[in-house]
């Protein structure tokens, strides 16, 4: 299929399908994340890039047979490897035997929240999650280094004039979105703070919150959204999220415990765990929200600049 637009649409369908699969496999938290990330943000980013780089794939496939041979060989080896893997759904496979029983049996006493995924994510494996948050933060910095454009305030008007204002052409969308955006933001906060009891948490809430802001900026234009959320503000928030996360670990270190040992935060260990998880999820939420918004803003800004330049060039030529 040569039309990249169709490929991206099918990728969106595939992502929705895989999220349904995650629900069927009991992984509600994962399905939550995949729903927000795969179907929403990823499809959008791909689309923005395709409109910038061209919709058609005009490549001559070089050596598909070699690729086919490599793929079939690797696939055969992997297939051979599967015969030793424990069967699907079997309760006695090694993955269920080592550390998992402790998570399942003791987490309610040690951490005191019903969602085991959250307690493993934010408490037992907090160091791991810290690494992930730093990776996300670094990706945000990298994208900023690659794509951010220097600002001149007088240019903004020209760029905004080129960039067609969607809200003027689609009245119905404007009204419906004005109803929906507060609901989306509120729902993101619900997901953030309800993560202890149901599916949810900082990662999901961050992506949903960012999706709400992205919807706003798509409708009313980037320059108006910039007035609400400026680039320095976003940068500061993303750094504050990582700092908050790290400082919780540092405070527990100074209190005499291990890094990310929340038992020492308060006199009551379980209350300390609650506080620690709340703070850490907040940090994750801040970082993920701001990095997602930052990524989208940089992409969209690049695109507006490109279109502005295109039209400018046309004017010069004619």
């Amino acid at each position, binding site marked *: 299929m040569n039309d990249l637009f169709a490929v991206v649409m099918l990728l969106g369908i595939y992502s929705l399908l895989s999220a349904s699969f*995650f629900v069927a496999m009991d992984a509600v938290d994962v399905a939550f994340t995949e729903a927000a990330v795969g179907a929403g943000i990823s499809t959008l980013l791909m689309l923005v890039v395709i409109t910038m780089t061209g919709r058609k794939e005009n490549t001559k496939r070089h050596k598909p047979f070699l690729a086919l041979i490599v*793929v079939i060989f690797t696939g055969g080896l992997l*297939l051979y490897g599967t*015969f030793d893997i424990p069967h699907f759904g079997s309760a006695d496979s090694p993955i269920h035997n080592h550390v998992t029983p402790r998570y399942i049996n003791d987490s309610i006493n040690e951490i005191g929240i019903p969602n085991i995924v959250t307690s493993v994510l934010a408490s037992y494996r907090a160091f791991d999650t810290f690494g992930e948050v730093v990776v996300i933060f670094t990706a945000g910095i990298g994208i900023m280094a*690659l794509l951010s454009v220097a600002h001149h305030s007088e240019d903004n008007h020209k760029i905004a004039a080129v960039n067609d204002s969607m809200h003027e052409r689609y009245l119905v969308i404007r009204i419906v979105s004005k109803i929906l955006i507060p609901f989306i933001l509120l729902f993101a906060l619900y997901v953030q703070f309800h993560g202890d009891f149901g599916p949810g948490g900082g990662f999901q809430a961050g992506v949903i919150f960012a999706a709400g802001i992205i919807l706003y900026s798509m409708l009313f234009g980037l320059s108006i959204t910039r007035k609400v959320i400026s680039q320095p503000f976003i940068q500061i928030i993303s750094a504050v999220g990582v700092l908050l996360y790290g400082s919780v670990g540092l405070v527990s270190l100074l209190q005499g415990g291990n890094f990310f040992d929340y038992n020492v935060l308060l006199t009551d260990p379980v209350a300390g765990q609650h506080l620690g998880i709340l703070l850490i999820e907040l940090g994750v939420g801040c970082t993920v929200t701001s990095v997602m918004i930052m990524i989208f803003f940089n*992409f969209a800004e690049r695109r507006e600049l490109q279109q502005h330049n295109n039209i400018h060039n046309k004017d010069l030529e004619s």
Partner: protein
Amino acid sequence: MITGLFNNWIVIVLMMSGLYIVIAHGNLIKKLIGLSLFQTSVFILYISMAKVEGGTAPILAENIKELSNPLPHVLILTAIVVGISTTALGLALVIRIKEAYGSIEEEDIQILDNLPQSKTQKKIMDGEQ
């Protein structure tokens, strides 16, 4: 007996189609799509491993005894968000490549790299724009 391994085979098929796209297609965006396909197949492998027969979602509630394994869920949850950030980084690189070379096809880029004069000409042309 055979059906117990069915999930792994699905994963292998998905993984290999992702690998094939990465190797055989020259378009950089298509390569990224292949990578994300590969990535999703790994997610599916982990999640299907975590499933226990008769278990439910790992959120404790009354009168629920058997739970699925929460550990792979945690790993994959973070991996999805990290995956989107790295994909976005790749897309940003693609945009810069497009600006520098004027093309996102692997073959064209290699040709431009091997002909230094034409590349500089291209750059001059870009600079004029």
